[in-house]
């Protein structure tokens, strides 16, 4: 009898796939952290209409939105070594950098940070702009510096507004990290591919890896709900 699935193979592939979770999570979380900095910086440039930089920011966001992530990953992976090499030969800069020793994970992290940063900047900008003008005025009126005002009053309120969107983008990013195998990073998807071609059982391994992604995303969603509740706790109208 012909079997639809080799169940044993499917089950046995889990440990190897799960062992690569740190790579997937590392790239997703690492790029979230880096992209938050990029996103806040870019958003502030646009809000304060900083000359020159705001034009560059617009081009950056437009480019990232208008090109496929896959292409962006290739651009980083092939472009950065070439640029470093060029700078070394032409200007003698970055002599200590050994292009060949940079791990592909680093390129993946960079590419995802730059990509997510562009999307986050728009979300963060609209979240900051959604904060009531009166909050800015009250902070100014008591003499708070712009930095203190942003850190203590505006960002916490903007964050509460932005979290649902940030969460969705983060979940998309987790799934998009399945692309990193193309530059040689062995994440959970890469591991699945390797196992699949070894055992010629692709259907089985892709079922296994999809289950791993699914569970991961469910856990992340749960955590996000908790974080959102905490960030919005001050909005509840009833005494705690």
């Amino acid at each position, binding site marked *: 009898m012909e079997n639809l699935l080799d169940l044993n193979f499917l089950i046995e592939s889990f440990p190897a796939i799960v062992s690569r979770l740190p790579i997937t999570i590392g790239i997703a979380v690492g790029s979230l952290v880096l992209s938050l900095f990029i996103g806040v910086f870019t958003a502030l440039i646009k809000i304060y209409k900083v000359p020159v930089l705001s034009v560059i920011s617009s081009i950056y966001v437009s480019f990232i939105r208008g090109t496929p992530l896959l292409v962006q990953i290739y651009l980083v992976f092939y472009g950065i070594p070439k640029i470093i090499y060029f700078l070394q030969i032409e200007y003698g800069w970055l002599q200590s950098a050994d292009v060949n020793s940079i791990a592909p994970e680093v390129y993946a992290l960079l590419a995802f940070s730059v990509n997510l940063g562009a999307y986050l900047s728009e979300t963060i900008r609209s979240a900051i702009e959604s904060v*009531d003008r009166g909050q800015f005025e*009250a902070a*100014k009126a*008591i*003499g708070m510096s712009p930095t203190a005002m942003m850190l203590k009053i505006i960002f916490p309120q903007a964050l509460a507004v932005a979290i649902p969107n940030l969460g969705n983008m983060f979940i998309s990013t987790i799934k998009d990290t399945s692309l990193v195998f193309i530059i040689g990073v062995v994440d959970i998807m890469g591991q699945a591919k390797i196992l699949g071609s070894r055992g010629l059982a692709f259907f089985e391994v892709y079922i296994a890896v999809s289950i791993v992604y699914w569970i991961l995303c469910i856990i992340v969603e749960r955590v996000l709900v908790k974080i959102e509740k905490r960030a919005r706790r*001050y909005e509840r*109208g009833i*005494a705690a």
Partner: protein
Amino acid sequence: MIKLENIHKYYDSQHVLKGINLEVSKGEIVSILGPSGSGKSTLLRCINFLEQPTSGIVEIGGKRVDVESASKADVFALRTSTGMVFQQYNLFKNLTVLDNVMIGLTSVKQLKKDEAKKKSLDILERVGLTNRLNHYPAQLSGGQQQRVGIARALALNPEVLLFDEPTSSLDPELVDEVLATIRSVAATGKTMFIVTHELQFAREISDRVIFMEDGVIVEEGTPEQLFTQPKAERTKQFLSKASRNK
């Protein structure tokens, strides 16, 4: 002492303050009346640079600032020597009642946390809200929020308090508790500017009443003078209309 000299404010080509001169001595309570669009709120907001005045001089407690050459330090000095109470309260929504009052002390005056807390508790006691310390603004009534707003403005111990229509967004039954709080602050000898539509309150609390229209001070005097024998025709019209609407 507070002195405004020839304050002008333009929004683009619109001339909203047309040379305001005002001298207020320490402890004096000045109410500013006038129809909407007369520039009274703008005047208040020019004193602490929430609006940048176009020209003129602002002087508070010996600090004299020519608005056209005001530095960041000048603006900071004016803002920390004034406390503002807003029509919409504008409490920091993400902070508790206590933190709303403390934040000026910790992040502007750089006081130690326990010292700031002690001061804040004293002030919150004066506005009668020590039982709401850990509430967020959304959990308070409008009247309570505005009393926190007054406490926050008092926290930095400013030379002058600026009230921008402090009771205009309140439900009628909550107005009295806020007016009572303002009265109790007045009794401590604080200099105050009050932009208000509460004529009776202005009459009772003020040392001086100013009537503004169209960016100029039309008339000023003691409440008695202004309310019983207004000189300018416009003041008469405004007062009779406003009291009829009551």
